[in-house]
C-alpha cells in the first residue's frame, strides 16, 4: 500500500462534471511530480453531492476537495500531495462534509444501502469482500434454512423501495410457497421515475450488493435463475453490473454449487429500450420475454405467475441492496432505524432548485424541510421555496404547509404526502403550477402504452385541457373536469401508470387551486411563465 490515497468520484453525474478528465490529469501530474510510488488513486462511486464540482478526497489527511478544472487538480498535486499543504480554497467546508462523509455521520444520516458507494472501487470484487461482502451469502447458505432467511426479511419489516412499499418478506414467502419446476429472481433496475437516480448510483457504486442479495433471494425462494433488467440508457450501470457478475462467477458466488453449498444460481443482464412503463413489474417481465412492455392484468401476481408464467420475485435495486446487511446484522438491528411501520432508511434524490443536488440516505421519518434545507442547503440564489414534488412524477405536489410531514409509507394515506421512489423536487417561486401540471401530464400521455383506453384517453384529455389553460383559454369548469378525469383514469386503468395519475393531478389542483383559478379569465399568467394566446377563431358551421 502506498502512503497516500486519493479517492475520486467517477459516477455518471460526476463524469459530466469532468471526473474522467480530472482523473487522467491526476495520473499524469503524479507522473510529472514523481509521486507515482507514494500516491494511490481510487476511482469510486458517488459521494452524494454535485453542485460543488467533482469530489476528490485525500487520505490519511482526510481532506475533501471540490474540483472544477484541471488547474484545480494541478494545485492539489503540486501543493498538497507534493508539499503537504492542503489547498484551502478548494476544500469543502466541514459542515457540508457531514453530507458527504460517512464516518462523520450526523445523527440523521445512516448508510445501509450506500455503505460502500463512494468508498470502494466498484469494479473490484476484493474491495467489496473486504467490506464484509458476500459474508451474508455465506451465512445464509451455511447457517440458515431458506425459511429462516424469509423469516428474517419478514421480521425486518423491509418494504419495496420502488415506490409501492409492499412487504418484501411476504413477496418472497409467496414465491417460496408456489410450486413450480422453475422460479426466477428479477431485479427491477429500470429506474425511470423522473428525478430518481439512486438505483443508478447504487449500481455504479456498489454493484455486488445487488448481486449478493439476488443470490440470497434465489436460495430463500428456490429460484435458480435471475435477471437484472437495466434501462437501456444506463451505460455506466450496465458496465459495472456486468463486470461484477463476471467476477462473481469467477469467485464461485454464481454458477453451479455456490461455495460448495449445493445451491446453484445463474444471473444475467437484460436491457430496456426506452419505455417508462417497463418499470411496472409485469410490463418489465413482458419485456424480458422479448415483447413490447405492456402490463398484464393482475391478478395473478408475479410471485405465482411471473416471468414465463413461473413464480418470480421482483424487487427494486434499493430493496435488494438492503438485504445483505439485514441478513448479516439481523432484523432487530434493521428495525432500530426508521419508523415502526416503515423500518430502515430511504435513499432520497434531492433535485430541482436546491443548492446541493444529489442523493442522501436517511432513516424513514425524515421531513421534506430537513431534506431541502439541512441536506440540500436551501434554494439556489436564496429564493423562496414555493412547491415540492415528493415521490416522483406519480407522487404528490405540496406547498409549504406540508413540508414538516414525516416521510414514510403511511405519510400519503395520513397526510397526502407521498414518499414514492424518494424524489424531493424543490421548486422556487419562479414556477407556475399550471405549467408544472401540464409538463407532468404530458409525461404520462407520452409514456402511456396505449393498451387500455382510460389511461390512453384520460392522459390525452388532461393534457388538452391544461394546454388550453396555459394559453389563457381556461374555463371555470376545467378544474372539476380535470378532477373527474383523474378519478376515472385511476379507477379504470389497467396498471400502476394510469392508476397513479390522480395523485399528482389532484394534489396540485387542491394545493394550488387559487393559481389555477387565477389563469381563468385573466389577461396573462400570474407568474409570468405560461404564454397566453388569443384563441383562433373558427367559423361556426351552420
Amino acid at each position, binding site marked *: 500500500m502506498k502512503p497516500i490515497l486519493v479517492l475520486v468520484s467517477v459516477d455518471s453525474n460526476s463524469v459530466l462534471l469532468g471526473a474522467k478528465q480530472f482523473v487522467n490529469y491526476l495520473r499524469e501530474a503524479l507522473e510529472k511530480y514523481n509521486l507515482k510510488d507514494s500516491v494511490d488513486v481510487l476511482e469510486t462511486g458517488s459521494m452524494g453531492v454535485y453542485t460543488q464540482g467533482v469530489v476528490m478526497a485525500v487520505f490519511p489527511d482526510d481532506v475533501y476537495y471540490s474540483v472544477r478544472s484541471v488547474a484545480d487538480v494541478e494545485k492539489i498535486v503540486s501543493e498538497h500531495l507534493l508539499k503537504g499543504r492542503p489547498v484551502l480554497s478548494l476544500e469543502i467546508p466541514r459542515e457540508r462534509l457531514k453530507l458527504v462523509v460517512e464516518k462523520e455521520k450526523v445523527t440523521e444520516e445512516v448508510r445501509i444501502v450506500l455503505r460502500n458507494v463512494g468508498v470502494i472501487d466498484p469494479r473490484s470484487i476484493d474491495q467489496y469482500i473486504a467490506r464484509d461482502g458476500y459474508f451474508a451469502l455465506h451465512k445464509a447458505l451455511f447457517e440458515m434454512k431458506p425459511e429462516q432467511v424469509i423469516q428474517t426479511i419478514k421480521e425486518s419489516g423491509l418494504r419495496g423501495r420502488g415506490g409501492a412499499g409492499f412487504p418484501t418478506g411476504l413477496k418472497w414467502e409467496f414465491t417460496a410457497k408456489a410450486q413450480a419446476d422453475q422460479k426466477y429472481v428479477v431485479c427491477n433496475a429500470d429506474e425511470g421515475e423522473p*428525478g*430518481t437516480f439512486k438505483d443508478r448510483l447504487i449500481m455504479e457504486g456498489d454493484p455486488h450488493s445487488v448481486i449478493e442479495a439476488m443470490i440470497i433471494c434465489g436460495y430463500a425462494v428456490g429460484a435458480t435463475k435471475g435477471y437484472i433488467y437495466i434501462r437501456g440508457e444506463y*451505460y455506466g450501470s450496465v458496465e459495472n453490473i456486468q463486470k461484477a457478475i463476471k467476477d462473481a462467477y469467477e469467485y464461485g458466488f454464481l454458477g453451479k454449487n455456490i461455495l460448495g453449498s449445493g445451491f446453484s444460481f445463474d444471473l444475467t443482464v437484460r436491457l430496456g429500450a426506452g419505455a417508462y412503463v417497463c418499470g411496472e413489474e409485469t410490463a418489465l417481465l413482458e419485456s424480458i*420475454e422479448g*415483447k413490447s412492455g*405492456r402490463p398484464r392484468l393482475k391478478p395473478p401476481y408475479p410471485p405465482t405467475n411471473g416471468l414465463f408464467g413461473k413464480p418470480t420475485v421482483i424487487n427494486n435495486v434499493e430493496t435488494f441492496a438492503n438485504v445483505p446487511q439485514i441478513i448479516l446484522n439481523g432484523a432487530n438491528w434493521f428495525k432500530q432505524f426508521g419508523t415502526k411501520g416503515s423500518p430502515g432508511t430511504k435513499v432520497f434524490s434531492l433535485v*430541482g432548485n436546491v443548492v446541493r443536488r444529489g442523493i442522501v440516505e436517511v432513516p424513514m421519518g425524515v421531513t421534506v424541510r430537513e431534506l431541502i434545507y439541512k441536506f440540500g442547503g436551501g434554494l439556489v440564489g436564496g429564493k423562496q421555496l414555493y412547491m415540492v414534488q415528493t415521490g416522483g412524477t406519480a407522487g404528490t405536489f405540496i406547498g409549504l404547509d406540508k413540508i414538516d410531514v414525516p416521510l414514510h409509507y403511511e405519510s400519503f394515506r395520513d397526510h397526502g404526502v407521498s414518499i414514492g421512489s424518494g424524489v424531493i423536487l424543490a421548486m422556487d417561486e419562479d414556477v407556475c403550477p399550471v405549467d408544472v401540471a401540464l409538463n407532468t401530464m404530458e409525461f404520462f400521455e407520452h409514456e402511456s402504452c396505449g393498451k387500455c383506453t382510460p389511461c390512453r384517453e384520460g392522459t390525452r384529455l388532461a393534457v388538452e385541457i391544461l394546454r388550453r389553460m396555459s394559453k389563457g383559454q381556461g374555463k371555470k369548469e376545467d378544474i372539476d373536469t380535470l378532477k373527474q378525469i383523474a378519478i376515472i383514469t385511476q379507477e379504470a386503468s389497467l396498471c400502476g401508470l394510469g392508476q397513479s395519475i390522480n395523485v399528482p393531478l389532484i394534489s396540485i389542483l387542491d394545493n394550488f387551486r387559487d393559481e389555477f383559478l387565477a389563469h381563468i379569465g385573466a389577461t396573462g399568467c400570474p407568474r409570468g411563465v405560461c404564454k397566453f394566446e388569443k384563441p383562433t377563431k373558427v367559423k361556426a358551421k351552420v
Partner: protein
Amino acid sequence: MVDREAVAEMVRNIKKQALEERDMLINALHQIQNRFGNYIPVEAAKVVAEELNVAESKVYEVLTFYTMFSTKPRGKYVIRVCVNLPCHVTGGRQIVETLKEALGVDFDQTTKDGLFTLERTSCLGLCGVAPVVMVNDEYYGDLTPKKVKEIIESLRARGDAK
C-alpha cells in the same frame, strides 16, 4: 445492402448468452442497431425473426414500441433532450427551445444535412446535473443555452470533417 449472413451470425452469438429460449430479442435488437449506426433495417429485422423463431410482426411490434429503436435511418448524431420536470424547472425549457432553434427542426425530425436528429426523452437519471441531453451514447449536463450552441457547433465541425 444488409449482409444477412453477418446479421444471422450475430444473432446466433447473442443466443449463446440466453438463460431461456425467448429472452434475447431486445438485447439482440440493441446490438444490431449499434451495428447499423442507429437504426434497424427491415431486412435485418427479418433475419432476427428467423433466427430467434419469432413472427416478423412481433419483431416489428417491439421495434416500434420502444423509443430507443428506430426502423428508419436517423441523423449521425441523435440528440435526446430530457423534457421531464426536474430538467424543466432548472432551465430545461430554454434548452429545448435553443435546440429546436439551432437545429431548425422539431422533435423526431432530422436536419437536412443528415447530421442531427432531435428526440425528446424521459428522465435520464442525471438530475444532479440537470438540465441534461444525451448525444448518441454521450451525456452532457449542467446545460445553458450557450453550452448547447457550443456543443452543436463542435459536433458540426466533427461531423463535417468525416
